[in-house]
Each structure stands twice: as structure tokens, then as C-alpha cells.
């Protein structure tokens, strides 16, 4: 038995919870399979997710459903302009009886964090959250606390209503592994949503996965085999965002102000492995890379004024790149 076959069998065993998770979530979330799949990929590859979509597309509900399906501590933080970093990380409170300061941990000490409308909070609060996301630890007073594992931040932001918002800086957006853009459901799904809401019957989501299973699955995801050819393919895609001319994409030179960072390469590889795991494969194929490429790169490509003036989006740039890079 080859190592890949062995890995495939392990994946079959370890990934059984993926179906259970999807089934539980589908009780509440109708359609939006794409979003559900990306949430699971984030969970498996230990990457934070930024969900973007207009109001009413079940972004918050999807994250709440995911947390309900996992035996894990969940916190929801509604970001507002008057929020303070201490409201997230916690603070020191003076205990008069003991005559000492005691730590009161904030909502960030949970497994799953829903940062709702992250762009409504000022920069210092965003920084506090994003620092915790990166370091996976928080310092209160002079004491440092590790955040629980798994620790996953799922943030939402609204692309419309830009008034009174604080757009996330490029450096901070880069900390999110995936940026998932949610679209409208199709007609059939919309009918189902309508019927379910009118009937006023909301199914209960049962916890089906323990955090330990997720941590174990994360270990398997990292073992998913990635051939050198796939590695080269990933590097070619990221390099094409930085130096389009070298890939005969001269027309993109004027449209890209900055390309993907090395974090983009790492995240694209990890997400492709997680995608292969979800598809019950012990190896990555070019389809996996292409399937997840938009979600990893769309927030990591800076557009120039020329691109914005011509209404060219990062999606179109990624499409151009994928159509120009030779598949191994």
C-alpha cells in the first residue's frame, strides 16, 4: 500500500465529520453551499475568514450555525464605532476584598469568534483583533494569555453603506486566509427560504463535532500530498500577480498596484490541501488550486486607479492570470 493510499484511507476516516457538519448547517442555511464549504476549509486549515456580502444573505446565521454544530465556545461581537480594545481582549478589575487586580477575559477567549460588521469599528479595535488573530495570544496588563484552540475568527463586512465605516487596511486584510464573497441564492433556494420562514419552524442544530476532531483533521490536512508541479503552479499564480509582464500579461501591469504576499502563497497551498481533504483526496490536483484561488487572492491584489476607473475587479485579474498560467 502506497503512502498516498494510506493517506486516502485516513482522510476517509477523519473527514466523516465534514458531511455531518454540512448536513447540520444545511438544516438552517439553504443553498450557499459555496459559503459553507469555505467555512469548513477555514476551520480545517486554521485560517480566519472574512465574509463579504450585502445584508440579508445569512452571513451571521451561517457562522452561528457552524459554531452550534461544533462543541465549542462561541462569541459574537457586534463591532460599533464606540467599541474599545478592552471590550474585546478583556481588562484588569480591582477586587476590593482581596485588594488586588484580577483579570477579566474578554469575548475573544472563545473558539469561534463572529466579528460582525468588522469595518464599523475604529482602527485600534480592528488592530487589537487582528493582532490576536495573528499571534493567537492576548496580553492583559503584564500577563500574556494563549487563546483557546481551535481559534477561528469569522468576520463579516458589508460592501455597501460605506458611510461611517473604517475600511480594513491592506496589511490587516492580508491576515484573513479567505475572503468569501456571497451572492444571492437561486430561485429554488429562495422559495425554500421563504417557505421555511413563513412556517416559522426553525430546526435545531445539534453539536456534531468536538474541537479535538477538528484539531486532528488539521494535522491530516497538512499531510495531504502536494507535488512539486502543483507547488510551481501556485508560485506561478502568485508571481503573476506581482510581475505580470514575466507571464506575458502586459495589460495587467497598469492594473495591479501590488500583488500577493508570501502569506498568499502559504495560504493558497494550505487552502488547496484543505479543499482536497474536503473532497476526500490525499493529494492536491490543479482543480483544488483553481477552486480556492479566488478566495485566497481577491483581497490580496491591490488595484490601481486605472483599474478602478475602468471598473476592473480583482476577480477579473485572477481570471486573466488563471487563463494564462499553464496547468501542470
Amino acid at each position, binding site marked *: 500500500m*502506497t*503512502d*498516498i493510499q494510506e493517506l486516502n484511507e485516513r482522510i476517509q476516516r477523519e473527514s466523516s465529520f465534514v458531511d455531518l457538519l454540512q448536513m447540520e448547517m444545511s438544516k438552517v442555511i439553504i443553498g450557499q453551499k459555496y459559503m459553507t464549504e469555505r467555512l469548513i476549509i477555514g476551520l480545517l486549515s486554521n485560517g480566519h475568514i472574512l465574509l463579504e456580502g450585502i445584508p440579508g444573505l445569512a452571513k451571521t446565521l451561517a457562522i452561528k450555525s457552524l459554531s452550534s454544530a461544533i462543541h465549542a465556545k462561541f462569541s459574537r461581537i457586534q463591532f460599533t464605532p464606540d467599541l474599545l480594545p478592552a471590550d474585546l481582549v478583556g481588562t484588569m478589575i480591582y477586587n476590593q476584598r482581596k485588594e488586588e487586580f484580577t483579570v477579566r477575559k474578554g469575548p475573544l477567549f472563545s473558539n469561534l469568534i463572529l466579528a460582525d460588521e468588522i469595518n464599523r469599528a475604529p482602527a485600534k479595535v480592528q488592530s487589537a483583533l487582528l493582532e490576536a488573530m495573528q499571534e493567537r495570544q492576548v496580553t492583559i496588563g503584564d500577563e500574556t494569555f494563549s487563546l483557546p484552540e481551535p481559534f477561528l475568527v469569522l468576520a463579516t463586512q458589508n460592501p455597501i453603506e460605506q458611510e461611517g465605516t473604517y475600511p480594513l487596511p491592506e496589511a490587516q486584510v492580508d491576515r484573513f486566509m479567505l475572503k468569501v464573497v456571497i451572492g444571492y441564492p437561486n430561485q429554488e433556494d429562495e422559495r425554500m427560504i421563504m417557505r421555511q420562514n413563513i412556517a416559522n419552524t426553525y430546526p435545531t442544530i445539534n453539536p456534531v463535532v468536538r474541537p479535538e476532531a477538528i484539531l486532528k483533521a488539521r494535522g491530516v490536512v497538512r499531510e495531504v*500530498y502536494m*507535488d512539486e*508541479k*502543483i507547488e510551481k503552479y501556485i508560485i506561478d499564480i502568485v508571481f503573476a500577480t506581482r510581475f505580470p509582464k514575466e507571464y506575458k500579461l502586459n495589460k495587467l501591469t497598469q492594473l495591479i498596484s501590488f500583488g500577493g504576499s508570501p502569506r498568499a502563497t502559504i495560504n493558497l497551498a494550505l487552502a488547496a490541501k484543505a479543499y482536497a481533504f474536503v473532497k476526500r*483526496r*490525499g*493529494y*492536491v*490536483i*490543479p*482543480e483544488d488550486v*483553481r477552486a480556492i484561488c479566488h478566495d485566497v487572492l481577491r483581497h490580496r491584489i491591490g488595484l490601481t486607479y486605472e483599474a478602478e476607473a475602468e471598473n476592473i475587479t480583482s476577480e477579473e485579474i485572477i481570471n486573466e492570470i*488563471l*487563463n*494564462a*498560467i*499553464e*496547468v*501542470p
Partner: protein
Amino acid sequence: MNKLIDIKLLKKALTISSIFLFIYVNNVVSQNIQATAKLDATTIKIGDQVKLHLTVQRPSNIVFSWATPPDSLNGIEIVESSKVDTIGNKDSVVMTEVQTLTITSFDTGYYPIPPFVFHYKKDKDTNDYTIETQTLLLTVNGIQIDLAKDIKGIKPPLDAPFTFTEFWQSNKNYVFGGLGLIILIAGILIYFLRRKKVVPIFVEKIVKRPAHEIALESLQAVEKEKLWQNGFVKQYYSSLSDIIRTYIENRYNVIAMELTTDEILFHFNRGQINTEAKDKLTHLLKLADLVKFAKVQPLPNEHDLCLTDAYSFVEITRSNEEDIKPIEEPTPEN
């Protein structure tokens, strides 16, 4: 004694007569120079223009300098000054010089025009002499307004028609420039049109080779290389996959080299190829993917089967010979 008295009387008489002679000669020269100023009208309406004529009559043998008129004269504005016109020449005994000033005033009242002072030097005399015109008085009247009448609206600006002369004066440089440019362009065009075209004697015929021909040749080359027999299984499957994808690209104008296996197979869902060809393509590409990305080691008979599938796919989907037309391209000029 009487003689002495006579001599004294004679000296006195000579002195007195010399003085009279000097006065007489001086008067004669002065009387020959005359400076006059004359107005066409001594009373004008406010804003009206009137001409002031300055005339000097003088002997031609004196050094004379004309008075430079100032820009304004006690509330009177000098609109225009004509050149000094001379009547007579150096040979004439008397010369007349004339200058006409156009003056106006924009305020009512009485304006004295001060005398114009001219300087001159007489022949063989270093003294500086002056002569001046008389003072004139210009009366500027306002316009009588009948307060009993209605107030009228402001008149529109007067229409000043744009004449060809004005156009020509302001644009003649552009007209000449444009004409010059047209002539230059026409010249260049004529030069190039009259140049004889170099017609190549021998035309190289470049025949675009059919996609299947290239693919079959490449497959034969891979077969000869005996890659899998020498342990290069991954390279063998990569070559087969690349040859077939290049063939699809040339044969069907699909960017197959930039598409994944699923995308290529999806492309053929619309019935461009028959089921047999699609099955062979699916088997070949899927197995090649497994070898390339999942370290799968197929059995030797599968290696041969894949090569056979590749040959069969090309043979089934090859285009007819008559569809392929050679493309003629001229030999590039030296």
C-alpha cells in the same frame, strides 16, 4: 583840443551803432522762427476728440529740436501723435515743421493747454535759445440731460463686423504654416507612392501543419524514448498529457494547456467528439493526473494502454485533409 573831442564822439557813436546793429541782427533771426499751436475747435463735448496742430517756421540753418509731447496735459489726454512733417529742405531758406496731436478729455471744464517749448541753436553760436507756442484754452462741455424724459435702457454693444482683413492680419501665419504642412505631407505621399514596390520573386510557401500530424509525430517520439521502461513514469505521463492537450489546443482552438482535466472534459460535453474518443481522453488524462500528482504507479500494460488511447484519440478526432489549406506568406523584404 577839438580833435580830441571829435575822436571821443566818434567812439561813442561807433559803440552805440554796434549795439543797435547787434539788437537788429538778433531781432531779424528771432523774427524768422515762429511757433504756433492751433485747435480745430476750442469747445468740445465730453469724450470728443479734437486735433491740435503744432507748427514751427524756422530758418533751415539752425539746430532745432522738436518738443516731445507728454501723455497728458492738465486733464487732457493725448490720444494720438502724428509724426513731425517737414515742408522744405536744407536748401530752402525757411522750413516749416508740423505735428498734429489728437486730444480729448473725459471731464467737463476749462482746460488751458500749456505752451509747447522748442529748443534751438543758431549757426556759429553755442547759446541755447527757446521758442514756445501760445497758451490755448479748451472748453469741455457735458451732455444736456432732459430729466423730464423717461429713463431708457442701456444700449447694446455696437456691432463691429469681422472683416476678412482682420482675419488675415491675425491668422496669416497659421494659414501659411498650414499650407506649408499640406505641401510637405503631399510631397512625402507622392514620394512614397511613386517608389516602386519591391515584389519578391520567390514566395516561400509556409504550410501550417495539421494538428494531428504534429501530435502523432510527438507520440512516436515519446514511444521511441522508452521513458517508462527506463523508470521515468511521471515524465512519460506528463509528455502524453502535454501532447494531447497541445493537440486539443491546435485542433479545437481551446486553451487546453491552461485548463485542468475537468475543464477540458467539460468542454467536450457539448458533443464535439464521440463517446469513444471522450472515454479514451478521460482515461488518459485522469490516469496522467494520478501519476503526476498522487504518486500512482500504474502497471506496465496501463502505460501501453495510455499510449494506445492517445493514438486512438488523435486518429478519431483528426480533421479531414481537405480542411487544411496551406497558408502562403511572402518572404520578408530585406
